[in-house]
């Protein structure tokens, strides 16, 4: 059973609409789960309309207007002369003057005028001398640089991001096209965040999400947020800076997955972790739900491949059956999305009335017209423009090859990219990628799934029911029955998890036969 899908958007700029028809426009492998979170928060902070996480009737998506915050970004990411200024000058005023003049040059390429003198009121002179106010400014900038998201990467400065302390820290990925012109860049903000935002809008948990996020990453009065805000000139706080943007296409108006996704995020946010500690866990959950979304939508097109399962190896010191099965499962899942693309062509193009009529058509010109119409209808492909062969079989072969090539470049890589980014999959101890959870992800899972405590077998069952994770023998029943593995191998796997959770302080063992997973952050007060 395939869930209901919305009609395609009217205006489509893509030359082929196939990955997008199944998964939406769009999920992109190069956008990490962290970037997805940032993009999503940016939309939440600047969404048009009265309420966050609320989509107008008819699922049209939402408008939002990201603030570009070029002054802030210049200070943090385009001013490599900070240390130099400090070294060359000893007098506080001289330092400020030198820095301000360097900044003039640094912002020369950007549209608009920049004057950073307001910073001197933020960092007032110290009474009685001592270190000057410039030193304090340097400390703040350095701190924000060290906490920047993926800050140590060598991305260009317009693709670096401040940690999301609050709304004043959110801005979009940009590209300096030429002097005086900035464009939205779709490489790291490739719309994953838009799709996640829409999923959450459609989860039916909008108001709860809004309320929970307000205290976590969208709180305008949070200390750090106010500090970052004050690093920016007043004019930039008006949301008029960037152009209005519209979210991409999310094909499914409703899915039970949306509700489950939102619930997981809500549970995490309500744990009351100190400061911003919940954010990495939210990132893990976003990544996990994107992986599941990719695979489950693919599974709807490939029913013969069975349910989506993630066979997880709890890393063992040496090669085990479970490792082999985890590798196999990972590989099969990676191929699943490309099989779905193939199935889409077979089901939607080949079985369309128009294509069938084309095949029955004797006249070759008529037939070609019908084929063109069928392709344009189903996957928005202009057969003429792409010079496809007019013989139906050859034409289809070409379409399939084209679709697969395109799929392989980005969406086909997304499963691996997201799974690796959140520590769901790794190559640890072997050369082949497989599902093998990291300590951090295990923590996230315990925080999400376990209330105060949960019997270990129930925990395994819950991971299976929610995420299709196969760890213990009961979940691996289907593999044991068909002879791929013996019970003992999965017993050992579960035992390894038990031991690992115990040393992480997340599990209490009563005996060999009885253990409870405990959520340390939910421990009774």
């Amino acid at each position, binding site marked *: 059973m395939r869930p209901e899908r919305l009609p395609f958007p009217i205006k489509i700029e893509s030359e082929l609409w196939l990955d997008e028809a199944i998964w939406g426009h769009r999920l992109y492998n190069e956008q990490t789960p962290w970037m997805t979170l940032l993009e999503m928060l940016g939309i939440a902070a600047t969404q048009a309309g009265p309420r966050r996480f609320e989509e107008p009737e008819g699922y049209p998506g939402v408008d939002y207007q990201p603030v570009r915050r070029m002054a802030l970004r210049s200070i943090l990411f385009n001013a490599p002369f900070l240390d130099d200024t400090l070294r060359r000058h000893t007098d506080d005023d001289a330092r400020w003057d030198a820095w301000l003049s360097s900044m003039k040059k640094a912002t020369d390429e950007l549209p608009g005028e920049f004057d950073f003198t307001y910073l001197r*009121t933020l960092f*007032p002179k110290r009474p009685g001398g001592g270190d000057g106010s410039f030193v304090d400014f340097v400390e703040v900038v350095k701190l924000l640089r060290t906490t920047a998201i993926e800050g140590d990467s060598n991305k260009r400065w317009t693709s670096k991001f401040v940690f999301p302390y609050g709304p004043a820290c959110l801005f979009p990925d940009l590209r300096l096209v030429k002097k005086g012109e900035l464009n939205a860049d779709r490489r790291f903000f490739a719309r994953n965040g838009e799709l996640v935002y829409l999923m959450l809008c459609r989860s039916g948990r909008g108001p709860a999400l809004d309320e929970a996020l307000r205290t976590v990453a969208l709180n305008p009065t949070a200390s750090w947020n106010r*500090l970052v805000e004050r690093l920016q000139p007043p004019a930039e706080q008006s949301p008029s800076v960037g152009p209005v943007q519209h979210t991409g296409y999310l094909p499914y108006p409703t899915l039970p997955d949306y509700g489950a996704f939102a619930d997981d995020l809500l549970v995490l946010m309500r744990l*009351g972790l100190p400061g911003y500690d919940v954010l990495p866990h939210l990132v893990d959950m976003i990544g996990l739900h994107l992986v599941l979304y990719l695979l489950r939508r693919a599974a709807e097109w490939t029913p013969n491949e069975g349910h989506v399962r993630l066979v997880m190896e709890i890393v063992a010191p040496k090669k085990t059956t479970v490792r082999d099965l985890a590798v196999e499962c990972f590989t099969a899942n990676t191929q699943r999305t490309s099989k779905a693309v193939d199935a889409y062509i077979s089901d939607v193009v080949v079985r369309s009335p128009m294509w069938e009529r084309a095949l029955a058509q004797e006249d070759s010109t008529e037939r070609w017209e019908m084929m063109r119409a069928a392709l344009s209808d189903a996957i928005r492909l202009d057969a003429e423009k792409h010079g496809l062969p007019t013989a139906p079989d050859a034409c289809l072969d070409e379409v399939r090859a084209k679709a697969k090539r395109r799929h392989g470049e980005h969406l086909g890589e997304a499963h691996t990219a997201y799974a690796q980014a959140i520590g769901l999959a790794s190559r640890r101890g072997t050369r082949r990628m497989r599902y093998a959870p990291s*300590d951090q992800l295990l923590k996230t899972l315990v925080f999400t799934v376990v209330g105060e405590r949960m019997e270990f077998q129930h925990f395994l069952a819950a991971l299976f029911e929610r995420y299709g994770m196969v760890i213990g023998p009961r979940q691996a029943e289907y593999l044991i029955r068909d002879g791929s593995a013996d019970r003992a191998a999965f017993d050992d796997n579960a035992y390894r998890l038990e031991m690992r959770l115990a040393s*992480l302080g997340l599990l209490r063992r009563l*005996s060999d036969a009885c253990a409870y997973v405990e959520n340390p*952050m939910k421990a009774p007060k």
Partner: protein
Amino acid sequence: MSGYVRNTWVTFLRQYGPVADNDAKFDEHVLASAKRNGVEALRLDSGGLLEAIVKNFRSSSPRSVILTGTAGDGKTWLCREVWKALGGESLRWTHSDERTLSLPGGATLVVIKDLSEIRAEQSDLLPDMADALFAVRPEWVYLVAANDGQLRLAWERASRTRPTVERAAKVIEDLLVQGELRAEADGVVLYNLSRQDSAGLMKRLLTALQAHEGWSRCNGCPGQTEGCSIWANHERLDDVLLQSRLTDLLTLCDQNGNHLPVRQLLMLASNMLLGHPDGKDRMLKCQEVEGVVRKGRTSLGSIYRNAFGENLSATLRDRTAVFEVLRRFGIGEETNNAIDNLLVYGTDDPELRPAFDELFGGDARYGVHPGFQESLDAYLEGRDAEHLEPFTDLAVAQRQRLFFTTPAAKAETFGLWELTVFRHAGAFLNGVLRPLQTREEVTDGTLVRQLVLGLNRVFTGRLTNDSDRLWLASSGSHSQARVCRIYEGDLDVEVRRGRGISIKKHEGKPALVVALERGVEEALPLHLVRFEFLCRVADGALPSNFSRESYEDILSFKSRLLRRWKVLDGDGDARFSLKLLLLNEKGGLEDRAVRFELEVSR
């Protein structure tokens, strides 16, 4: 034959050893074997449990009793003892499925010696029992034995025919999770035999074992003087020092959550006495002893090696819980320079000689035995001698022996606990566990400071020497970051006006307790692994290199502390002061404010 005695008591003792798969029906099996061999089975003291349970059932308002624990904890045995003490007939115990007794208070006792024998989800047993738990004067009371997994599962699956079932299931699970030896609620008392103190259990077991009349049957056997390892081990097992080291290990196992049930302890005792690689099943029988003595291989039956299952095959050893757990201490493999120098050069070096003689010389059987010197010479000269036991193997045996024989007065000098993986286990035993047996709180402040130093290094990611205050820090965005440069708070170690840090009992268990305010506490339960981790970090080990999991574990504690801290601080948004945490030249931590004016209008 020179007339070595065949002692049936020794034959009987083999039953307890790691010989056969003796899992199911162990209790019945042992009884039969005792009868066959014409000896009295071991009578163990239950440490007051039996008496307490019997007293309950004899009282005017008895409560139901659940005996739980893991396989081998002696649940069936205790059930039977209660049955006998209440006047139940032995024959009915063995041959009948209906085990009921009228109690003095008027109620009828139903004994279920193994819950797994009953298809609980189909019978009315659990609903009836549930009713009884909440009745004011129940007609029926129960004595049920079940291992903890089965107990939980049976109640989970019990048909919810009556409202009491759900309630009872919850009550029993709560009692189970408390993890106490005795827990009670409503009309039920739950004894979790897995929470018995293994050290105490072992002491009682050794007393009963050594005092058994069966040993008198060895009298007159020439083996007693000629080098029978069984007899030698029997004599050495009385050694107070050996017993205390053994029970120390068991105490540490308990603390680490590796409980050893009584059946495993019996296995250990039996193997310590009888173990020898030349015996059938690697355990000696009386008739094999003479051959071993003739070949001069007595030393391989050393009680100190047997304690770690050295006589067994590696597979069997790994499969047997007690050896698997004891071997985690790495005793034999771990060492220090002082000990190894003594072992290798002690015989030749006049400076080392006195210490060598004290530790090794006096023991011609398991210490410097005839093969030892020969093997050492071969080792020093770099010769391969095929007929000799390699010196490296002998050294393992000697370190194991040392662990049990180094006098308490010399323990510090020779670094006794450095013979184990847990180098700070001695400090944990003497500094934490022992004091807390008699007091609520550890008064010696040095240990607290050492742990605080470890915490500071984990919490800040800096190699600080500061142990006067506990420092809380974050990276500004994340409290779990490897290196944290932002000051979040600090707390003096000294306890003053309800604030401070101490090692004391928390919910009955040893813990490092951080009191942020009077009555506002966050506790880190201390077990051996955590203690060792923090001490090693305090000694200079890098936190995430030493043990990633322990590191994450301690970071969780930091999370909990910070969460408390922030709640106490209230909504700090109004006055934001940013402080950097700096490491000064002396390795101390200090905070320095970064100044800015958020409130100035512009």
